[in-house]
């Protein structure tokens, strides 16, 4: 009985500690109804956007994100029928052109604190790089900020895949496909290159996770790192929808041993860039 109580207490303590970790482990994603189309000029995809712990299930409150649609001819197009439910944002893409479309959701948030009249204050929620200057009152000192940039993407192709939508902007963390993301087949190697502010970025952790975790029971995660040229190659074993994540965030420190003194939390980096793509892999 005593033993049980102790372990429960430990579990409770662990759970409390884990809250921030869990919150940051929630994953952002888009889920297209399908990704490959005949290209007859009048086809539709519907896309869900959500945040969740498991892929791809709706279990967190929906956020009012704005998708940007890049058309094969290099222009920006409008998504249609956008709606926000409790657990997801949804919209449709009308594929009228031939080639590859990209849907992107870009996020920016600044966290931090400052000291005013000897008192430390935290930045309110919802501050972005654009509104940061207004959020810090005159006379504030010891300003500490951490900027988080997110890019969530998915790709749709009508007919033959094309490359115009992959031209990098030179801002944030971006993916340049070596293997076209709408040309992925199970058992074949896929290569992508990652750029940070337009330059290849080495040694970043890449995680690829198959959807359907709830029923497969196992988190079939592929872990890799970008090479010196910013490229990473991996082989997806099965067909299905996959979530790909690359981040500049430092790895989380290993949990302290039981009884060991807890050190101060590591300082937040001044900037974290996070890239997510949903990829559909077809069976051979």
């Amino acid at each position, binding site marked *: 009985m005593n033993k049980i109580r102790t372990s429960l207490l430990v579990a409770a303590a662990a759970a409390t500690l884990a809250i921030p970790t869990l919150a940051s482990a929630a994953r952002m994603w888009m889920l297209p109804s399908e990704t490959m189309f*005949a290209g007859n000029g009048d086809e539709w995809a519907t896309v869900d956007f959500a945040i969740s712990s498991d892929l791809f299930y709706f279990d967190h409150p929906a956020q009012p994100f704005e998708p940007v649609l890049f058309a094969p001819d290099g222009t920006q197009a409008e998504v249609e029928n956008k709606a926000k439910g409790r657990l997801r944002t949804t919209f449709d893409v009308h594929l009228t052109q031939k080639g590859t479309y990209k849907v992107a959701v870009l996020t920016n948030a600044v966290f931090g604190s400052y000291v005013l009249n000897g008192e430390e204050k935290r930045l309110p929620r919802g501050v972005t790089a654009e509104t940061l200057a207004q959020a810090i009152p005159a006379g504030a000192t010891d300003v500490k900020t951490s900027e988080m940039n997110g890019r969530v993407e998915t790709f749709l192709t009508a007919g033959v895949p094309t490359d115009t939508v992959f031209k990098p902007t030179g801002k944030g963390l971006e993916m340049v496909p070596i293997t076209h993301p709408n040309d992925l*087949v199970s058992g074949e190697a896929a290569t992508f290159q990652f750029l940070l502010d337009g330059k290849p970025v080495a040694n970043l952790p890449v995680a690829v996770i198959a959807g359907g975790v709830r029923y497969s029971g196992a988190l079939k995660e592929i872990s890799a790192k970008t090479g010196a040229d910013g490229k990473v190659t991996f082989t997806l074993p099965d067909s299905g929808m996959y979530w790909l994540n690359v981040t500049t965030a430092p790895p989380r420190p290993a949990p302290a041993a039981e009884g060991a003194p807890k050190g101060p939390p590591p300082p937040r980096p001044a900037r974290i860039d996070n890239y997510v793509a949903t990829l559909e892999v077809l069976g051979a």
Partner: protein
Amino acid sequence: MQIRHSLILTGVAAVSAGAASPALAETLDLTVTIPRMSVAEYHSPYVAIWLEKEGAAPRTLSVWYDIDKPKNGGTKWLRDIRLWWRASGRTLQFPADGISGATRAPGTHKLALPAGKLGNGAYTLVVEAARESGGRETVRLPVTVSGGKGSAKAAGTSELGAVALTVKP
């Protein structure tokens, strides 16, 4: 209905074969079996037949789909013949002369497909079937062509039955 389209297909095949000099072209005599199924909802499968050779672009020989749908509507689902769509289909215009044909009912179908001059070497004939509200299956027939001749056999287990190929000069 089925016969009419088969006749059209055979007719096109015959015309194409006739246009080329017989000495310079091979014909693929192919038998494809579409299994009979006892399912609540059955639609004849979309089928693609193509020829692969290492180092060469895959070549589509025949595609069966709903060619009678208005506004070329049947082409929307061609992408469900997935391996073929990626290998060759997405680069083609439909309807395609000598390639497009109607879907076929369960049974054994004999085809004579003009293949042009093949040359000696290793080829793979691929048959892929994708059925609405059903499954998808691919049967691959590796065949060595020598002097314009060769043969191969294989069989599917779900969406395709026996497939037999004879290459004739």
